[in-house]
């Protein structure tokens, strides 16, 4: 029964990873760049939610509702001010600039909040769970996170396929120049893609901060998990990202069942195995 529990927890954890990953996937799809500070922005969102909750007395959920649009705006601005410029400089510039950004965010958070681990206090919900049997119980929070992840992915999918801007984002991902020829303002589109990425990663950061403690240094690990979910699932496919997140979560919880020290390693090994034997990912794009 402990195994069943591990599997269920792993799948639910995968939802969180997919939430971390979908922004990475969209930005890479549209702009062909990876924001190395992706994970750090999630941590930044968690700290902001912490401060908002602290200052206003609002619950963490409401603090998240405030923080997410703020991060979306930050994303749009960051794209217009910094990333757009770096795109014009050369292929290395964005990576280096976002890496510098990652170092800046980590250390600014360190200065502001110290290295102490913190958590978003959600009261009883943290321990409340749905008991299915003696050994198997599903935490409400994990369930909520998973459902949120699926809702976000479905929403994104609908946005990309049904709206005018969404279609143009896909077109621009296929061929940026041809997209400009039909009227795409690439800078604005890229800004939208970045703000979607920031909003989703902020949501992921806040959800993460409710279930476990966080400190300024954990951003890079979030980036790595998100990246692994994207590659395992297959580049450029949102459903692939969800599957990738679930595979990663499963690998971690099941291996953790054997030996807690194996948790991280197992996730990485799955990632490397996919890279070695199925580099296109489990669910490559264009299978819809």
């Amino acid at each position, binding site marked *: 029964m402990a195994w069943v529990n591990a599997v269920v927890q792993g799948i639910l954890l995968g939802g969180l990873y997919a939430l971390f990953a979908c922004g990475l996937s969209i930005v890479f799809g549209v702009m062909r760049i990876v924001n190395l500070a992706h994970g750090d922005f999630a941590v930044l969102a968690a700290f902001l939610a912490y401060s908002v909750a602290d200052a206003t007395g609002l619950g963490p959920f409401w603090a998240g509702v405030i923080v997410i649009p703020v991060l979306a705006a930050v994303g749009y601005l960051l794209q217009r001010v910094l990333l757009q410029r770096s795109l014009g400089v050369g292929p290395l510039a964005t990576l280096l600039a976002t890496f510098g950004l990652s170092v800046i965010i980590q250390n600014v958070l360190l200065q502001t909040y110290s290295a102490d681990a913190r958590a978003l206090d959600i009261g009883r919900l943290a321990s409340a769970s749905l008991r299915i049997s003696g050994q198997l119980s599903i935490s409400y929070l994990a369930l909520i996170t998973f459902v949120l992840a699926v809702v976000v992915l479905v929403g994104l999918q609908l946005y990309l396929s049904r709206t005018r801007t969404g279609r*143009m984002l*896909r*077109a621009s991902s*296929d061929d940026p*120049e041809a997209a400009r020829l039909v*009227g795409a303002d690439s800078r604005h589109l890229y800004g939208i893609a970045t703000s979607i990425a920031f909003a989703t990663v902020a949501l992921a950061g806040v959800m993460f901060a409710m279930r476990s403690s966080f400190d300024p240094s954990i951003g890079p690990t979030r980036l790595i998990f998100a990246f692994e979910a994207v590659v395992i699932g297959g580049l450029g496919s949102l459903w692939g990202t969800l599957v990738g997140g679930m595979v990663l979560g499963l690998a971690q919880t099941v291996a953790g069942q054997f030996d807690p020290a194996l948790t991280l390693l197992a996730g990485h090994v799955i990632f490397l195995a996919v890279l070695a034997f199925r580099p296109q990912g489990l669910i490559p794009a264009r299978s819809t």
Partner: protein
Amino acid sequence: MTLLEISDLYAYHGQLAAISALDLTVEEGQTLAVIGANGAGKSTLLRTIAGVMPAGAGSIRFDGRDITRLPAHHRVAAGIALVPEGRRLFPSLSVEENLLVGGYRRRPGPWNVDRVMELFPWMAQRRRQSAAGLSGGEQQAVAIGRALISNPRLLLLDEVSLGLAPVVVRRIYQVLPEILRAGTTALLVEQDVAQALRVADHVHCLLEGRTVLRGRPGELAREQIERAYFGVDARRQPAAAPGGSGSADASDPAGAGDPAGASDPAGAGDESGAIPRQAGPNPAGSGASEPSASEPGPAGAGPAGKADEEVTG
């Protein structure tokens, strides 16, 4: 009324001037064909007008407004649409989505998805299919439809016939008049000279980025076009080339004539023998004797055939 007015335009690929000192005007409702050999700067010209390539110097005016520095998407909104070389459809979008994306900055006008599908009836049944799965000719039709849906005042068509079977090309050129009847002004680039001459009111011939000939198809002699196409004039008179003064206007018979008497085909043939002594680069050099050799056949068939080989090869 003048819709497009280009004056003294330069455009560069790195250090190389793909277009030099180009002047060109398109009147509203007109169909202008730009012809020229490979590397003459035709596609660069269209891309510069559409705004995906920066103008190095000079100006582009559209409907009286200076658009030289205007970003591409604003030009679409102003009414310029380019059907790019090689179609450039969005492969992960369906046929219908490709058309819808074309209407992103749609202006008021007759064209919409339904109207395009009336023009190309096969599209309706295959609207949900991925654009990547279409044949070359079908892709070209979607690409034209995608540009039309923005209801452009000026439609730029870049090498619509490139890489397509002759039958398909003929079919596309059959629909073209129907499209233009709606009042759209067109500027088309073609290597298939015969095809271009058939649909155009005006012809503009480029050689190595410069205008070498312009006029109405009916007023231009075949030899004139051949010479302009391959640059026999330009080679014979190196002094005339800079500043675009080598261009000839058909309405001015004196300008069109060649003082050195190159209308004699044998003379042109002899000229090619002198190439090794000349220092300048000469991409069309090997083809210089070809027009005079291919005596029979319709005007421009020689150059067109030659050019097609170069593209596919």
